[in-house]
């Protein structure tokens, strides 16, 4: 019931297009791993490979030490004990909620099946509508039934493919919190695929960032956000300033000053800093090009020497357009990347 899922060097191509390129990732039991990436980055393909809906080209997927895919093995979907929640929920329209949830409980006796399905519907607060059909439910309710259905057979892992993207606003967050709480309680390993950065940062116990078929970085959400290992990973999690730098003896020399860069390889590089980690000071190194109100904060665009463009997100009284300004960067919030070519 609590098994770790290992994805090891998994590769999948459709014709000449590489959808998943040697991706490796572990899914810990009882934890939510978020796979974040733009649409078409291969995250859904990876999910389908784990579920067994697609066959991989190379690599291996194991669960609790048992090989599911790879090395000549392909355990059929229906024997994997992996629950799946789809973006469109995929409820069976011709079955009641109870029948939907009981669908995967074929091995149990009739009474047990009913009891287990009702128990799950109870958990998602829909037991009183057990005999209703899916089309009368709201989107949030359908989502809850889909989750109850996936959890009913006590899967060892649960995969969620953008399960909240069909819901809007406040509802979305409530439904998500309740859903993930329920999954964590079951102790199953959970993979949540999403393209929504806020969702990934808020929901994840572990975050994996995917781009063009590759998993760029894995770690705690806060670490990945604040200490991205590449400019691509940094960009996927939100806007970031990239300041050209020359690095020597653990110091980064830039057009706007010198910053510590211990451990970074010498030579050309880039300094990455999030807009909210840029503090404005009095000075004349930069000029304020525009100031826009962004709800509680101000977004300030600055131009500097050598065509440098910077963005700062500040609170308090903003500068005025046309004024000059200086910046101060928190050394603890700086990332050093290689230059654009590599």
């Amino acid at each position, binding site marked *: 019931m609590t098994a770790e899922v290992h994805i090891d060097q998994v590769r999948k191509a459709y014709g000449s297009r590489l959808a998943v390129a040697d991706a490796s990732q572990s899914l810990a039991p009882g934890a939510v791993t978020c796979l974040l990436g733009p649409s078409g980055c291969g995250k859904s393909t990876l999910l389908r490979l784990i*579920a067994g*809906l697609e066959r991989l080209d190379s690599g291996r997927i194991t669960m609790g030490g048992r090989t599911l895919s790879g090395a000549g093995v392909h355990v*059929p*979907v*229906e*024997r*994997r004990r*992996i*629950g*799946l929640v*789809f*973006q*469109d929920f*995929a*409820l*069976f*329209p*011709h079955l009641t909620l109870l029948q939907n949830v009981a*669908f*995967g409980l*074929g*091995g149990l006796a009739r009474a047990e099946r009913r009891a287990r399905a009702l128990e799950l519907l109870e958990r998602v607060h829909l037991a009183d509508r057990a005999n209703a059909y899916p*089309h009368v439910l709201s989107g949030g309710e359908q989502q809850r039934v*889909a989750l109850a*259905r*996936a959890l009913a*057979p006590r899967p060892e892992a649960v995969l969620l493919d953008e399960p909240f993207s*069909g819901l809007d606003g406040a509802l979305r967050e409530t439904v998500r919190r309740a859903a993930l709480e329920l999954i964590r309680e079951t102790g199953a390993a959970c993979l949540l695929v999403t393209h929504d950065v806020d969702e990934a940062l808020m929901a994840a116990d572990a975050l994996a960032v995917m781009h063009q078929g590759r998993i760029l970085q894995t770690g705690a959400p806060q670490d990945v956000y604040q200490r991205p290992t590449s400019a691509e990973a940094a960009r996927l999690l939100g806007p970031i300033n990239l300041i050209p730098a020359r690095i020597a003896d653990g110091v980064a020399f830039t057009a706007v000053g010198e910053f510590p860069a211990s451990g970074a390889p010498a030579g050309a590089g880039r300094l990455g800093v999030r807009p909210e980690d840029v503090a404005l000071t009095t000075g004349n190194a930069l000029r304020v090009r525009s100031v826009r109100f962004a709800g509680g904060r101000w977004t300030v665009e600055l131009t500097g020497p050598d065509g440098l463009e910077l963005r700062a997100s500040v609170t308090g009284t903003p500068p005025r357009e046309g004024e000059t300004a200086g910046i101060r960067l928190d050394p603890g919030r700086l990332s050093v990347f290689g230059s654009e070519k590599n």
Partner: protein
Amino acid sequence: MSLPLRARSDRRGPSPLAWAALLAALVAIAPLAAAVMTALQPGAHSLTAPTFLRYAGASAALAAMVAVGATVLGAAAGVLVGLHRFPGRGLMAWLLAAPLAAPTFVLAYGYADLFDVAGPIQSSLRGALGVSPDLNVRSLWGAGLILSLAFYPYVYLTVRAALAHQSASTLEAARTLGATRAQTLRRIILPLLRPALAAGAALAVMETLADYGAVSFLGVQTLTTGVVRAWSVFGSTAEAARLALPLVGAAAVLLWIERRSRQGRVSDAARAKATPLALEPLGGWRGLAALVFCVGLIGLGLALPLGWLAHQGLSVEPDTAALVRAGRNVLILAVLGGALTLGLATALALGGRRTPFLTRLAGLGYATPGAVMAVGLLAPAGFLWRGVEGAAQGLGAGVLLLVLAYASRLTAAALEPIGAGLERVTPAMAHAARSLGESETGAALRVELPMARGALLTAALLVFIDILKELPATVMLRPFGFDTLAVIADRYAKDERLAQAAWPSLLIVLIAAPVVIWLNRQVSRTARGVTQ
């Protein structure tokens, strides 16, 4: 320059489009109403209850046989092609609809001759076994089998369309919940296909009840053959109309089943995120078996009877002059009938959007057998012709009646693609035209119809094929000596000159087959979301 805006009167009556739609619906329903009224008129009853029950019983039995036969064959073919990959699948996918190109009487001629006592099958069986088994297809059973083979494409096509609207994730969800492929088929796919199967079966039964050519040739006495017989042998429109009455009732019920089965498809299709179903590869002997099944179905439904008929036809010299004349006649009818039908259907599609009742009326016309339409037109026509000196002798009057009968019957068939084509034109486009100063009619003519021209072509071709194959209404209403290909085929066949009947029959199939195949490919392309 500021002109005062002239406000239109607030009392907005129906637009010209709405009036046109009403008129179209009335034209479509008029013959039907006339038939019912004729039937209900008091008069001498030559029709006895036992005769009536015998006809009705045969119709019901035949309908039941075809409902089962066509559904089983069509569903198997639809699920096979819609969900699996096997050698030759692409070709089979559209060839499976090809039997729709052949009028049923063509199949009946072919099979009747093949299974004749002197035919090749009985002869070789006698040679091999020394006994002569009773394999007479000129029977209720034979008609049931032949019509099942002729009409399975209706079920096949509705099943394909329904599968195209299913999201892959529904089936994948079942698999992740532990269902095997076979269990998924039984517990998910077939229940989800139930509405499509009902709709397809309803269409097949409609056609079965309406069939005249095959059924009369095979000597089965149904209500529809009774209608034609009552009129042609006994010259009684009233009796024909009374026989037609249960057919109208059945048509209404079938139409209701067919329409109801389609509800809910909209909500499925509206889910934009639905991913198309992945095809399950069938390797080795399974793939071969799938191919054999499809080839067998096409062979029995079209190639075998048609091939045998062609073989027979080649042994005689065709009456080329008669064929050319009949071809020209049916072309005239198709152009006139097609133009009227398309006009009515377009009016209904544009003007009837807010009044679904009108389109349902037209639908009833489609469900009604052509023979009944003819009866409905004969009664008022007879009254009219008697008033106008010499009108009955004129060619124009008969052609007009025929064209009206076709339009009444086929308006709903043409409405279907036109309505679907217009649905793809978003309301915003018409609104844009209105905001730029066009009237509702103007917006329809300048924006909506040009955008739906592909659908208009589809509708025109559908009507063309139906007129080409039409037999009972043409037999009853045509001006004296004005034969179509179907009519001369029917006459030759009833004179037991099958080899001669082969020529017009084959001509019909040769003209219709490419059109049917093209239409089917269009349909499967739009099902996949590729427009135009």
